């Protein structure tokens, strides 16, 4: 809304009626109609939107009115330039900016893509009705003008969908990043013992993050034993196993023991079928078993004999 006064300031002498006279000189009927009947168009358009696509649960009347008025104003100025075909032209910068803001806002508000595009498409009805009355000459000229108006609005509608989709993709990309961070927590279980509960499919990018996070935490905590729990990993293929082995080797190079736990029966079978060699790696069925082993190792390393648990006695 801050845009309109600014533009007025740039061209103070030109009001809607002046634009209309200018448009009559330029002789494009769309421009004529937009300039002469802007207020009526707006009323009819809003009435149309209210009966078809309006979502009172998502957007307030006043907000919708403001958006529609701003869009019509910028569209009128763009059409005045005589260009009614190419919406990528600089003349349409204002229109695209209004629609871009609107689409992004609506994608966040929870509108569907069609509802967002219908904001533009619903202008067709009132605009066509006005054009039919305003266009001079025979049916041919009316059809030409209609086609031009249709083409223009279609492009603008598609533009809203594009922006809508782009902002959704941005959301997805950000969530993926968040997930990457969230899904690799390294927790300290005990003095000298850290655990990495892995959840989700392991691909190269994630494993790299996992590996770096784990090794960094080993340095920070001075842990002697690191437990990698893969209970939450749905499938293990050769690549995943390779990544796991690399992590274990790297941890060993730094002086920490690695235990892999949470290998489910099916995954154990898969690993054997794939011929992955895990003989150098300590593996345990559950995190509890791994932790018990880790206690033994930490105790032995510190020279403290570990009190035997009843289960093991």
């Amino acid at each position, binding site marked *: 809304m801050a845009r309109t006064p600014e533009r007025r300031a740039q061209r103070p002498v030109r009001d809607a009626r002046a634009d209309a006279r200018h448009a009559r000189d330029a002789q494009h009927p769309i421009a004529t109609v937009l300039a002469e009947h802007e207020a009526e168009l707006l009323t009819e358009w809003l009435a149309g939107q209210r009966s078809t696509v309006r979502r009172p649960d998502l957007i307030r009347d006043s907000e919708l009115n403001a958006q529609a008025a701003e869009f019509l104003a910028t569209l009128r100025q763009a059409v005045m330039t005589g260009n009614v075909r190419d919406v990528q032209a600089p003349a349409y910068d204002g229109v695209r900016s209004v629609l871009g803001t609107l689409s992004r806002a609506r994608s966040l508000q929870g509108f569907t893509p069609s509802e967002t595009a219908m904001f533009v498409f619903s202008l067709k009805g009132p605009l066509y009705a006005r054009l039919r009355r305003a266009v001079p000459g025979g049916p041919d000229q009316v059809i030409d003008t209609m086609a031009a108006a249709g083409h223009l609005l279609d492009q603008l509608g598609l533009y809203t969908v594009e922006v809508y989709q782009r902002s959704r993709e941005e959301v997805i990309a950000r969530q993926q990043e968040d997930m990457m961070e969230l899904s690799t927590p390294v927790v300290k279980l005990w003095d000298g013992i850290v655990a990495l509960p892995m959840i989700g499919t392991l691909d190269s990018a994630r494993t790299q993050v996992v*590996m*770096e996070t784990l*090794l*960094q935490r*080993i*340095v920070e905590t*001075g*842990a*002697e034993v690191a437990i990698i729990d893969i209970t939450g990993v749905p499938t293990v293929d050769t690549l995943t196993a390779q990544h796991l082995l*690399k992590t274990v*080797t*790297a*941890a*060993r*190079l*730094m*002086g*920490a023991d690695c235990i892999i736990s949470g290998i489910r029966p099916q995954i154990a079978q898969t690993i054997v079928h794939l011929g992955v060699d895990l003989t150098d790696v300590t593996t345990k069925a559950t995190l509890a078993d791994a932790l018990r082993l880790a206690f033994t190792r930490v105790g032995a*390393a510190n*020279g403290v004999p570990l009190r035997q648990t009843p289960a093991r006695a």
Partner: protein
Amino acid sequence: MTAGGGAMERIPILQMGEFLLVTIQVDLNDTLAQTLMDDLTAKVAATGARGVLIDISSVTVVDSFIGRMLNDIAATSRVLDATTVVVGMQPAVAITLVELGLSLGGVRTALNVDRGIALLRAALAAPADATHPE
């Protein structure tokens, strides 16, 4: 050590009881690594040291040659009846060595010098540990 020589020509080897302590505080080049290996082998033979501790916590850049050199030092020392422990490897260095396919199977590792010394003492106290578990 030379005063005005600029780059370090050799890495000092300290004797602590029956252990030798090497702290690498510069990024190793091939010549330096080769010199270190020669010096270390000679020193192990001369002192009859039972353990060698190499601290690489300040090393940030490694290549396959350095990786192999660590492996060779460990193997040579074992021939001379000394256990080698590499301590303080940085995460980035560990990842690099793994990506290079060097798992340093013959080298023992520890997180820091303290743990390394403990590991050496334990290895000396129970030399039969690896071969006879019970």
